[in-house]
């Protein structure tokens, strides 16, 4: 009886009405797209009965069946390749990497096949490749990756990373409807963070890919960031407000193609830019953003463009090590104060 009730509950449309966590928001987004479009399907490791390592796909198999929720062998090349093939047939695969770290095993097919098909022969690949990214959860060197800079230099892949439940739902729905391949990064630390719970509007909505959002308006310094670091930036902004510094926080949401207009508009307003990201500093997306700002807003700058990022090491496991590795609120405070004083 209890199982039957549980099953019934699962079959109900998830998270309507009540405040949703990010994981519920993503699930609801996929669920709704599968309801409205029979070509949408889910593929990945343990996504079926188990519901995925983080339960993003929980309940989908009960509602949509194993034909549309496909458990695969441990074969990321097969997952990406099969998603590409099905997408060529007009299907809309939502492929899961159990952890985004394992995207390296599908790298070849993503960068050489998915990314280049439209350019080479006009065949688009409307597929979403999603999975949990990010550090700060004591998961060590192989379950903590932020992968965006590996793909930033590949033309043909869009990249998205939400930092709110609303954006997560709106962006996953937009990614599924997008005619081109989208890498969808979900910061695992945000999945069930109570602070991010929010009531989502009833009915269909999307968040447009390619558009940043202003997470906090301010006059003095622009912090350009995304993912879990948006929260770090907002915490720092609150601290600095006490010192009379008014920070603007730009949440990029889409990492490729970058919303240059939003970045430049903010920097031209505040005249100071701090780029904050969780991946290692060298070769990170921050360098690209800094180059855009210095090329296109040089005359508006009152100080050098500064970056705060993780140190150039693998992600260490032990809490003191990982905390040192990651940018903390204090690092943002120190850097912002220097920028203000420059």
């Amino acid at each position, binding site marked *: 009886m209890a199982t039957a009730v549980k099953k019934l509950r699962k079959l109900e449309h998830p998270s309507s009405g009540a405040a949703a966590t990010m994981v519920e928001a993503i699930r609801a987004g996929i669920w709704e797209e599968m309801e409205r479009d029979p*070509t949408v*399907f889910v593929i990945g490791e343990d996504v079926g009965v188990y519901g995925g390592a983080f339960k993003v796909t929980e309940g989908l198999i009960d509602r949509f069946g194993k*034909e*549309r929720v*496909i458990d*695969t*062998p441990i*074969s*990321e*090349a*097969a997952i*990406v*390749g*099969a*998603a*590409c*093939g*099905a*997408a*060529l*047939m*007009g*299907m809309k*695969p939502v492929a899961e990497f159990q952890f985004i770290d394992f995207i390296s095993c599908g790298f*070849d*097919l993503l960068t*050489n*096949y998915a990314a*280049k098909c*439209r*350019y*080479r*022969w*006009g*065949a*688009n690949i409307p597929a979403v490749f999603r999975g949990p990214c990010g550090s700060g959860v004591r998961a060590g060197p192989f379950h903590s990756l932020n992968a965006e800079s590996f793909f930033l230099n590949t*033309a*043909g892949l*869009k990249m998205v990373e939400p930092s709110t439940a609303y954006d997560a739902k709106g962006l996953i729905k937009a990614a599924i409807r*997008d*005619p*081109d391949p989208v890498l969808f990064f979900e910061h695992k630390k945000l999945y069930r963070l109570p602070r991010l719970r929010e009531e989502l509007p009833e009915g269909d909505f999307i968040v447009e890919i*390619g558009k940043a959002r202003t997470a906090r308006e301010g006059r003095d310094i622009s912090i350009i960031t995304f993912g879990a670091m948006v929260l770090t930036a907002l915490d720092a902004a609150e601290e600095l407000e006490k010192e009379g510094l008014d920070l603007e926080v730009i949440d990029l949401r889409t990492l490729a*193609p970058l919303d240059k207009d939003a970045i430049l508009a903010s920097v031209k307003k505040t005249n100071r830019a701090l780029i904050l990201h969780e991946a290692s500093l060298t070769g990170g997306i921050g360098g690209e953003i800094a180059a855009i700002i210095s*090329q*296109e807003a040089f005359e508006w700058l009152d100080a050098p463009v500064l970056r705060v990022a993780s140190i150039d090491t693998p992600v260490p496991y032990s809490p003191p090590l990982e905390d040192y590795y990651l940018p903390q609120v204090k690092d943002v405070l120190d850097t912002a104060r220097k920028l203000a004083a420059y």
Partner: protein
Amino acid sequence: MRISTKYAPRKVADGQPRSCIKDTSLTHEQMLELYRYLKLTRLVEERIVNLYRQTKVVGGVYRSLGQEATAVGSAYALRADDFITPIIRDLGACFVKGIRPREILAQYMAKAWGPSGGKDLNVHFGYMDRGFIGPISHLGDMIPVMTGILLGARMQQKDIVGLAYIGDGGASTGAFYEGMNFAAVQRLPLIVIAEYNYYAYSTPTNLQTAVRNLAEKAAAFGIPGYIVDGNDVIACYEVTKQAVDYARTGRGAVLIEAKTYRRKGHAEHDDQRYVPEGEIEYWEKHNDPVDRFERFLLDQKIATKESLEEITAEVTREIDEDSEWAESSPMPEPEGAVYGVFDNSIVPPAFRPRVLEK
């Protein structure tokens, strides 16, 4: 599972010339069509070499000389709505799937009228409506892609099969294993033709794999394996036809190994210094797929010398005409490079950014 050797190469008595198997359901008309595709493949490649020597081909030239029967015979076993994904040694399979010589010639010459508009080379293009998906250079990748085509087709309730080609080199890649394994688990109608042609670039097969026959790899996936004489076009057709019938009735994937021989180097520039003396000449003299099929057609009185010459003349005329067409194509406009990374109605074309302009 046991490997079927029904269509495997057979020993011939000394001095006895090789022909083709006689047990076939092919009509005389179909066999003459097969002959036409074999000649078309060989002569188009010769034309490409001529154009290469005239420096009209921009990139490398890859030949399938000596192994044309594998591509032609196997692809001929498909229905029009089935899919193929060839490798570079399967030009004949492209023609069977309806690709025209002019498209291949324009691709080699990097012309605007080629199917990729100059963005990619040789057989690297595709037509979903013709069931043709060109390969990429990363060997093995097309196996999981074809698996996905079939997965999509199954969800759409289409009973198509997919034929993917791989070489003795490509069968060493991880993507090959992952794709075959997934197709086998899902019982998808994937047929893989593994061409044992002795060399992957310069590397002999004994440095590529420790199995004697590539078909033995079928055991790893729990699917049937076949060995076929890759230089017998009828055997290639028959074995693939069996596999197609097996796969289309929902019984799953099949691996077919075609024993053949690559008589040219990896590409036209390759001096083949790694090939033992006399080996190429042996295959040319005793085991050429076109010679064997000609002998068969004449011995069986399916064709006369004159009728075969007529087919060759017709093929040559087609190539002349298509070659002229391809040469008359303009090169692509340079600015064409910026389009088509994404849907350009959503993301603008990738123009070079203008800097320091007020």
